[in-house]
C-alpha cells in the first residue's frame, strides 16, 4: 500500500491522465481515488491543465467530417438519418418545449381573441349609442339653427302677448313673419290646464275668431303654431279637451295684437 503523499510524488496520476499506464497499473491506482478525495482533486487539476493544452493547440477538422460522423451513427443506430441522434433525447425535449410554447401561445391568443371580441362588441354598442345621440343632437342643433335664422330674419317680428285678468302672470312670445308667412311660439307661461280642459289658440281675422289649434304644452317642447294671414291679434282660451269650434271668451287667458 502506498500513502497518498507517495502517489502524489510518484507522478503516477500524471501518467494515468496521459494514458501512459498499463491496465494492471490502472487497476492498482484507481482504488486510491475512492479512498482519498485529495487524489481526485489533484487528478482533476491535472486533467484540466491537459485539457487547456489541448484546446490551446486545437486545429479545426475538415468541415465534411461532422456530417460523415452523423450519417455513420444514424446508420449504426438503424434509424433514418433525420431522426435518431440529431433528434434523440435532447431534441425530444425540444419538441416538448416547442409544443408547450405552442399550447401556451394558443391559450394566450385564444384568450386575447375572446377578450378583444368582447371589447369589440362593447365598443360597437357604445358607438351605436353615441352615433344615435350625436344624430339626435345634430337634429336639435339644426332645428335651433333654423329657429335662430327665423328669429334673426329682419322681416320677423317679435310679439309679446300678456295675461288677462284671469291669469295676470301669464305671457307668450311669438315670432311672426309676414314675408315668409311663418310663425313660431318661443315662450309661453300658463298655469297647468285642469283635468278635461285644454288651451286653444285663436286668431282674430277681420273680426272673426279663427281656430289656430290646441296648444299641447309638453316639457321642454313648445307647440308649433300655424301662420295666419291677415290676423290682427292672437288669443288663448281654456276649452274642453279636444278643442272647441268657437272660443269661450269668458275663459280668455292671454291675448295681444300682432300688428
Amino acid at each position: 500500500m502506498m500513502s497518498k503523499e507517495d502517489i502524489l510524488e510518484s507522478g503516477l496520476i500524471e501518467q494515468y491522465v496521459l494514458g501512459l499506464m498499463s491496465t494492471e497499473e490502472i487497476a492498482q491506482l484507481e482504488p486510491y481515488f475512492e479512498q482519498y478525495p485529495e487524489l481526485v482533486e489533484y487528478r482533476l487539476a491535472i486533467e484540466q491543465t491537459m485539457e487547456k493544452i489541448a484546446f490551446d493547440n486545437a486545429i479545426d477538422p475538415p468541415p465534411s467530417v461532422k456530417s460523415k460522423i452523423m450519417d455513420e451513427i444514424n446508420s449504426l443506430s438503424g434509424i433514418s438519418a433525420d431522426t435518431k441522434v440529431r433528434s434523440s433525447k435532447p431534441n425530444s425535449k425540444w419538441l416538448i418545449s416547442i409544443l408547450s410554447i405552442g399550447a401556451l401561445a394558443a391559450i394566450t391568443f385564444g384568450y386575447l381573441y375572446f377578450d378583444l371580441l368582447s371589447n369589440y362588441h362593447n365598443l360597437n354598442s357604445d358607438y351605436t349609442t353615441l352615433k344615435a345621440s350625436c344624430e339626435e343632437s345634430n337634429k336639435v342643433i339644426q332645428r335651433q339653427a333654423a329657429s335662430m335664422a327665423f328669429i334673426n330674419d329682419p322681416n320677423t317680428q317679435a310679439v309679446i302677448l300678456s295675461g288677462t285678468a284671469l291669469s295676470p302672470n301669464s305671457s307668450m312670445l311669438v315670432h311672426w313673419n309676414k314675408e315668409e308667412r311663418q310663425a313660431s311660439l318661443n315662450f309661453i307661461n300658463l298655469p297647468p290646464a285642469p283635468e278635461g280642459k285644454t288651451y286653444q289658440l285663436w286668431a282674430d281675422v277681420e273680426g272673426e275668431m279663427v281656430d289656430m289649434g290646441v296648444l299641447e304644452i309638453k316639457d321642454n317642447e313648445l307647440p308649433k303654431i300655424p301662420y295666419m294671414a291677415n290676423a290682427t291679434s292672437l288669443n288663448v282660451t281654456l276649452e274642453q279637451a279636444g278643442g272647441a269650434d268657437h272660443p269661450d271668451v269668458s275663459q280668455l287667458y292671454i291675448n295681444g295684437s300682432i300688428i
Partner: protein
Amino acid sequence: MSNETSILSSNSSFDIEKLYDDYSHALYGVISRIIQDEQLAAEVLQDTFVKIWKYQDRYHSKKSTLFTWMMHIAKNTAINAYHSKANRQKHNTSDISEATICAGLRVASINTDALDIKSSLSKIDDKYREIIELIYLRGYTHKDAAQFLKLPIGTVKSRIKIGIRELRSIYISKPVATGTIISFMFFLNFL
C-alpha cells in the same frame, strides 16, 4: 471549457453533435499531429466520435473527466491507424527493416518543428516542453520519448510530472482568475 452536465443527460445519453461542436478541434489537434495525412486524420476523427458514441456506457465520471476519456479514445485510435499504415508500408516496401516500423519509424519521421505548438507550453523550460509535447500532443509513449530524447525512462517520468505542475501554475496565475469567478458566484449566492 467543458460543460459535461449539459452533454451527459441524466440517463447518460450523449449529445454527440454537441460533443463534436465543443471538442472536435481539441481532439483533432492531437490526431493531426500523430497522423499527418489529412485524409487519414479525418478518418481517425470520424472513428473516434463513432467510438465515443458506441462506447458511451463505458465512460465513468469517477475515473476521469469526459474530455480525458475522449482524448484517450482519440489518441489510441490515431496510434492504431498509424501502426496500420506503417504495416501496410512494410509490406509494400521490401527494404525497410522491422526496426523502423512502429515507434522507430515514428521517431525517425517526426519533425518537432513542423507543427506549431502554442501558448503556455512555450513558456516552460524546453526540457519539460519537449516531453509533454511528444507524449501529449504527438502520442508518444514514455518509452518512445525516452528513446527519441536519449534519456532514461525515469527522467522522462519525472519531467512529465514537473512539466505539468509548471503548466498548472501558469494557468492558475492567468489574468482571468478562477478565484474572481468563484468570488462572484459567492456574491450571487448572497443575493
